[in-house]
């Protein structure tokens, strides 16, 4: 059964000048994890906001757990949990206060809210920090508390909008651990991320979106296959970069990507060692000496590059989370 369905969602801002969503289609099978992967500005947050009733689409349909998002937003809010890009908890209040308050707002009643708050604090290793104001928490702890707040009533669908953006590597690892635990417990999860590795780690299924549309959909393996299985990598001297990119692009059939710092040119190839040989031959006749050449198994980065023509390496202002 599809727990989340979005059909043909369109959302424009600025009186139609900015098309945040341009006929987006999505669905999430019950008990699975879908990762919506895309760079900043691709429309990830807009999708989440529409599905969680915070925003109305200009056109299109959306259902969550069989409930229409536009006609029945109150009912939708009863079955979802949302954890946004910012840890949306009250900084001045303690972790415990926050969870009890949200529990009461979910109409659990004071007693039940206290029980649930303690359970969640325990589960997310926050018991020790429970009585401290959130502003003393680390970025990772805030996110965990925020996640806990979205799990108070065991939602049928959980939405996590960039759950690790802005976290340091350790915080990210911790968060992944927590999410993986949830997934094992069988939650239906829609997760947005701009980190390919994150999608690879956490999701059953990936929807790659760019400029408001889903441009590819499948398991991480299927997406990698779609790009052509393997990836050719060549490192050359600075002055040969342009020519080498031409050669690699010609052999691959896709525009080659370049990491300027490493002088590394990459492109997906489908013919493995044959392609490698062709490139070496062409380089040789062009008089270019390659410093390093190789075939690599593809990463999701390559998938992204091949699908969108630009890399997913978005320069994110990683805001230092206030301590």
């Amino acid at each position, binding site marked *: 059964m599809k727990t989340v369905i979005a059909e043909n969602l369109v959302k424009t801002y600025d009186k139609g000048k900015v098309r945040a969503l341009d006929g987006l289609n999505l669905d999430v099978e019950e008990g699975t994890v879908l990762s919506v992967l895309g760079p900043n500005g691709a429309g990830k947050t807009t999708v989440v*906001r529409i599905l*969680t*009733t*915070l*925003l*109305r689409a200009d056109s299109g349909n959306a259902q969550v757990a069989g409930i229409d998002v536009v006609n029945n937003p*109150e009912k939708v*809010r*009863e079955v*979802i949990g*949302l954890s*946004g*890009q*910012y*840890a*949306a*908890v*009250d*900084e*001045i*209040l303690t972790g415990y*206060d926050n969870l009890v*308050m*949200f529990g*009461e*707002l*979910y*109409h659990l009643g004071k007693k039940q809210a206290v029980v649930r708050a303690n359970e969640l604090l325990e589960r997310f290793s926050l018991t020790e920090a429970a009585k401290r*104001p959130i502003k003393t928490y680390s970025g990772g702890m805030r996110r965990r508390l925020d996640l806990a*707040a979205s799990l108070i009533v065991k939602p049928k669908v959980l939405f996590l909008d960039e759950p690790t953006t802005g976290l340091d590597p350790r915080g990210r690892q911790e968060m992944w651990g927590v999410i993986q635990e949830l997934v094992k417990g069988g939650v239906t999860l829609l997760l947005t991320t701009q980190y390919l590795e994150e999608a690879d780690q956490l999701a059953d299924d990936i929807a790659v979106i760019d400029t408001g549309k889903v441009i590819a959909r499948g398991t991480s393996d299927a997406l990698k296959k779609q790009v052509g299985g393997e990836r050719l990598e060549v490192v050359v001297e600075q002055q040969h970069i342009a020519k080498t990119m031409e050669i690699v692009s010609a052999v691959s059939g896709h525009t080659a990507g370049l990491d300027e710092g490493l002088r590394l040119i990459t492109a997906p190839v489908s013919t493995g060692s044959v392609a490698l040989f062709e490139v070496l031959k062409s380089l040789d006749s062009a008089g270019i000496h390659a410093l390093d050449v190789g075939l690599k198994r593809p990463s999701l980065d390559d998938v992204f590059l091949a699908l969108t023509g630009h890399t997913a390496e978005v320069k994110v202002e990683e805001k230092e989370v206030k301590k």
Partner: protein
Amino acid sequence: MRALNDIYIITRRQLLLLSRVPEVLIFSTIQPVMFVLLFRYVFGGSIDTGQPGGYVQLLMPGIFVQTVAFTLAGTASGLAEDMKKGLIDRFRSLPISQSALVIGRTLGDSLLNIVVLAVMGIAGYVVGWRPSSGIGNIALGFLFLLFFGYALSWVGVLVGLSASDARVVQNVSFIVTFPLTFLSNAFAPTTGMPRALQYFAEWNPVSTMVAACRELFGLENQFGATAGSFPSEHPLVTSLFYMVVIMVIFIPLSLRKYRNYAE
């Protein structure tokens, strides 16, 4: 019933916040207390009122009104803060009454006003303010003040939700509140003002509120009441009218803004 429960929880959150950051309460009372001292002892000496009991009798109602007028800024910046932190998204994604957050916020700010007004009343008493109208009318005067603060709180909701930045909110609220409180009869007679200003001051809701409170606290003299004009003859009715108008306009506007704020 659920909606009431939601509103109650949000209001309680406001109070919990206050208890965790007592500085807010301290600073919301220090400023008006400073005004009391400033006007009472610095300017008061050179203002001749002919009022038995002296200038402070006229001053205190002015200070009270000014204090509750700043509720507008308090509500606005509180909401702007919540918005900045993404808290409003969380509240809006909960299965709660969609207006609970703003209603709870306005009620919480009114409760804060009760505490602040109590402190101000005591400060006034210490510097010689002696209302002479009997307990019933005095209580009615304070009720009037709370009601006025509550009405302005709804203007604050709209300002807070419309602003892009919490600092802007502070400035906008100040620009709205400051001239209203000073171009009035709160601190000095309006009779000394240029004609046009006198007119404004007379119909200014702050002036009618101050005049209403003076009446309720048992004062004869009302700074700058042009004899015969409607607001000076009927300050209570005019003030009540203003408050109702403010709420009739701003409650629906604010609630609509809140529902659509993401757009």
